[in-house]
């Protein structure tokens, strides 16, 4: 639980954010509802500040380094000094919105022709219009009291994506959101905010990648809200490949409607510290929801996945699969809470978290949590932390496959279990290649250490 009384040092750290807010807000000249929303965000942030490891939800992830960063909102996009095509998914034929340091770059973006009523745009452009749909949804799903970083994002976001797929419409090609950081300045922060509305019976594949053109100690604080209608089929794939010095906090709030099919993938390979908060609310019957993720960490990286899967309706299935491959002194954190409301009978909820340690100094903290108020449900969870399975290695060697190759095959397969769940084929192939390349780069994958 988050505390409501701020310790003095928390107060001090939150101060610059609070002090700068009034001016930020005044300069923006926005409609009253949005100003009100931002103010509520700032008030909430001022009230709770940054979490500490005394907060149960942040026990394994210390965000003090973020709190100690100088306050540096990026007011305009930096220069892009590297070719964009070096980044993942840039060869993919798709609609693409590019954001540089949180600011929309229309010249670098491509919006393919879309079926009637489909709107894919940057959020700021939609906010500049009369936007009742945005007003109705923005901040209503990822609410400011969800966590402190949502509050901060709500106060300070400047742009992000807006995707609206009306009922029955199909967005054929994936939509790719590229968030590129270019700032080397310590503490420079961007707060991208994205709203995705996929109405009844619509189809959408959304890719979100967070990358960096520089080595920088910057801070990304992203929030994405999904409103998924009845029978909609939505696939979301997030790649967090930030600079190795960067801090990345992201929150995805999914409000899922009756009989929709929603799958979300989270791949974390970058950042010094990353935390992905995933909140799913299953608010209709017969929902199929899969949360799937892979984290690869090395050096002193920390990758944290925190999720709450809330079954608030009967007859829904949810499954979380998260695998971590941890090297050097790095750390993986998994916190998965399945909450089954009393009304949610016939829930089938499963959760697995598997961690592969490639070094003796790597650590994994895993915290599965079941909170069940209904009596006719199937809920399971399992977590493993360990090294490569010796029996598997022997089996492969006993067929003539050498030790190093056997190890590589098993590590790849550990990642492959997760990658294979990506339904969009070009995305799956590309991520397969990304993960393969990252593993090949790792001397401990090919070497003989660890077994």
């Amino acid at each position, binding site marked *: 639980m988050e505390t409501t009384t701020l310790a003095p040092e928390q107060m001090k750290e939150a101060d610059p954010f609070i002090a700068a807010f009034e001016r930020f807000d005044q300069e923006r000249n926005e409609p009253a509802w949005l100003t009100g929303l931002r103010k509520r965000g700032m008030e909430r942030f001022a009230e709770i500040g940054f979490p500490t490891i005394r907060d149960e939800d942040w026990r394994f992830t210390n965000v003090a380094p973020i709190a100690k960063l100088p306050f540096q909102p990026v007011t305009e996009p930096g220069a892009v000094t590297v070719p964009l095509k070096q980044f993942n998914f840039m060869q993919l034929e798709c609609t693409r919105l590019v954001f540089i340091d949180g600011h929309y770059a229309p010249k670098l973006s491509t919006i393919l022709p879309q079926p009637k009523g489909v709107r894919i745009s940057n959020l700021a452009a939609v906010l500049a219009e009369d936007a009742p749909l945005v007003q109705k949804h923005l901040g209503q799903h990822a609410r400011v009291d969800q966590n402190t970083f949502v509050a901060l994002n709500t106060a300070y976001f400047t742009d992000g994506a807006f995707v609206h797929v009306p009922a029955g419409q199909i967005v054929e090609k994936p939509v790719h959101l590229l968030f590129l950081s270019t700032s080397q300045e310590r503490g420079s922060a961007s707060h991208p905010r994205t709203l995705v509305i996929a109405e009844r019976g619509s189809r959408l594949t959304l890719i979100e990648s967070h990358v960096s053109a520089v080595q920088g100690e910057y801070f990304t604080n992203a929030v994405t809200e999904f409103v998924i209608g009845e029978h909609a089929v939505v696939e979301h794939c997030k790649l967090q490949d930030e600079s190795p010095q960067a801090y990345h906090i992201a929150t995805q709030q999914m409000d899922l409607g009756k009989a929709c099919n929603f799958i979300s993938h989270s791949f974390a390979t970058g950042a010094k510290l990353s935390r992905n908060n995933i909140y799913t609310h299953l608010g209709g019957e017969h929902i199929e929801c899969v949360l799937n993720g892979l984290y690869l960490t090395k050096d002193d990286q920390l990758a944290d996945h925190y999720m709450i899967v809330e079954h608030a309706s009967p007859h829904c299935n949810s499954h979380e699969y998260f695998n971590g491959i941890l090297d050097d002194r790095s750390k993986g954190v998994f916190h998965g809470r399945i909450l089954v409301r009393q009304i949610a009978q016939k829930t089938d909820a499963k959760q697995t978290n598997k961690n592969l340690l490639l070094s003796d100094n790597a650590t994994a903290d895993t915290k599965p949590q079941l909170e069940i108020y209904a009596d006719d449900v199937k809920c399971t969870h399992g977590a493993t932390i360990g090294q490569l399975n010796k029996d598997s290695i022997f089996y492969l060697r006993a067929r003539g496959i050498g030790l190093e190759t056997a190890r590589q*095959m098993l590590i790849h397969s550990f990642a492959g279990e997760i990658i294979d769940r990506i339904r969009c084929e070009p995305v799956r192939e590309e991520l397969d290649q990304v993960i393969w390349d990252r593993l090949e780069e790792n001397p401990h994958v090919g070497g003989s250490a660890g077994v």
Partner: protein
Amino acid sequence: MLEIRNLHAGVEGRDILKGVDLTINAGEVHAVMGPNGSGKSTLAAILAGREGYDVRQGEVLYNGVDLLEMDPEERAREGVFLAFQYPVEIPGVNSTYFLKAALNEIRKHKGLPELDAMEFLSLVKEKMKILELREDFLKRPVNAGFSGGEKKRNEIFQMAVLEPKLAILDETDSGLDIDALKTVAEGVNRLKKPDNAQLIITHYQRLLNYIVPDVVHVLFDGRIVRSGTRELALELEEKGYDWIVKHEAVPA
């Protein structure tokens, strides 16, 4: 082909094999029978090179070379094959990918060119028929979600593809129903050639109704206490291992 001489071995300080002698020539099928805890699986594991066993005395020569000095993958490349009692499930490793990698390692070792995807596929399709395996089998991850019978058939299928010189079948019959047992046994029989050999490790006689051994050995308390023809297996079946226990003092 295989000469085991006075093999003493154990695990974690416990003696399991207490002086095993066994010679297998090319073209022969040998069966090693014994009750639980007699050391059957330890013998199979040591021959295949599983870690964790201490060999305290004796030697194992494979075509005149010290087998125990070789890594498991070297043994496999030299033609030693273990059909596992408990085949390992490896989710995420595709069966085709796995078997092609294994076959090509062995071919490379023999100085043969590696097979490409098409050549490999036509080879395995032919071998799959022997074991009556379904077409989708190759697309699945290695043993993942397979039934007990499928796993055992998969072992013999791999044996058919890799064409070992010395195949060790560790309790391949356990957990098989009679139809699966026949299929597996027929597969094994079809793979028998004058230049290869098979070592069948089993608790029960029933597999030997279908795979007829040239020699039957009884392993008891870490030693081969009797060797004989197929009739020995039948006698064991009839009289039970107690019969051997009572006569254990009589040297084989």
